[in-house]
C-alpha cells in the first residue's frame, strides 16, 4: 500500500486535532490552578498567605469595631503560584480548576472574593479572639491532659491566668492571693 494511503486512513480514523472548545466544554485537568478559594471555616487569620503572596492579591484586616476580620482575594493580581495553598497551616486556601476568568473592564474590581470571619469572644474577659478550628486545636493539644474545648475559648491573657491558677493548685499554694 502506498504510504500516503496509510496516512490518509490514519488521519480519517483520528478525526480533527482541533479542540472543539468554544462550542463545547474544554478539557480541564483536575489539578489545574484556576482560581484561589478560601474556606472561611478553616481560616485561622494567621496571615501567612498574605505574607507569601507575590502579587499581594490577599488582603486581611480587622474591621473597625473589631468584630472580625475581612479576607479578600483579588484574582486580577493573583499569579496562581499556589504559595498560599502550600503555606496555609489548616488547608483553608485551595485552588480550584475554574479558569473562566475573562471579563469586561467594568468588572475589573469585582473579579474578587470577599469573606468576613467573625471573632469569637473570650469566655473569661470578653476580648475579641481569633477562632481556632477544632481540628487544629485537637492537633495542638493532642499530648495534653487538659480539656481543650475549654482552653480554646480563652484569650491568651485569660489562658495565662488559668494556667497560673491550675499550677498553683497543683503545688498546694493559694491560687488567688489577691
Amino acid at each position: 500500500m502506498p504510504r500516503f494511503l496509510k496516512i490518509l486512513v490514519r488521519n480519517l480514523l483520528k478525526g480533527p486535532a482541533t479542540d472543539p472548545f468554544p462550542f463545547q466544554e474544554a478539557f480541564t485537568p483536575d489539578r489545574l490552578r484556576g482560581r484561589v478559594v478560601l474556606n472561611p471555616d478553616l481560616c485561622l487569620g494567621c496571615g501567612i498567605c498574605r505574607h507569601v503572596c507575590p502579587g499581594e492579591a490577599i488582603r486581611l484586616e480587622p474591621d473597625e469595631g473589631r468584630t472580625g476580620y475581612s479576607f479578600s482575594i483579588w484574582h486580577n493580581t493573583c499569579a496562581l503560584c499556589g504559595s498560599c495553598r502550600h503555606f496555609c497551616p489548616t488547608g483553608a486556601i485551595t485552588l480550584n480548576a475554574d479558569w473562566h476568568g475573562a471579563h469586561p473592564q467594568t468588572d475589573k474590581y469585582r473579579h474578587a472574593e470577599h469573606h468576613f470571619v467573625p471573632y469569637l469572644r473570650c469566655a473569661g474577659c470578653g476580648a475579641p479572639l481569633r477562632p481556632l478550628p477544632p481540628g487544629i486545636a485537637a492537633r495542638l493539644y493532642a499530648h495534653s491532659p487538659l480539656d481543650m474545648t475549654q482552653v480554646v475559648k480563652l484569650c491568651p491573657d485569660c489562658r495565662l491566668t488559668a494556667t497560673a491558677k491550675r499550677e498553683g493548685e497543683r503545688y498546694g499554694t493559694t491560687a488567688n492571693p489577691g
Partner: protein
Amino acid sequence: MGLFSSITVRSPWLYRINAGSCNGCDVELATTAFIPRFDVERLGCKYCGSPRHADIVFITGPLTLRVRDKVLRVWQEIPEPKITMAIGICPISGGVFRGGHSIEGPLDRYIPVDVNVPGCPPRPQAIMEGVLLAKQLWLARLEEGEAGKNKAAHAAIS
C-alpha cells in the same frame, strides 16, 4: 452596501503588543493562534502584522517605563473602533511586578482597556473566551458607529 454588510459576518483582525512582558503570555497568544488545536481562525479572527489593519489588540506585560511611549504610539496607530484586551495579570494590575521602580502600569492608567483576561499566563481557552467577548463588544461598537453615521447622514439631509 448596507445590506451586504448586514448579511456578512465581520472578522476582527488581531494584533499583539508586548508592553514589557516576560514572554509567557506572548507564548500563550502564539499557541492560541498558531497551533491547530486552539485554532482562532475558526472564529473568523486573524493575526495581522501591522497596527493599521488591526481591530482587536492584545497587550501583554506590565507597561514598563522603557516601552511606554512606544506602546502608546503603536496603539494610537490602530484605527477606531478598536478593542483593547489586557492579557495576563501584569497589564491588568501590575501583577507580581506591581510597585516596581520601572513599572508604569497598570495599563488602564494610559489606555482604555475593554476586556481583561487574568492568569499568569492565562490558558489558551481563557484567551479564546476573551476573544469571543471582545468580538461581541467590537460588533456592538461597529453597529453603534454605523447607527451614528446614519443618524448624522439623516440630520444632514433633513
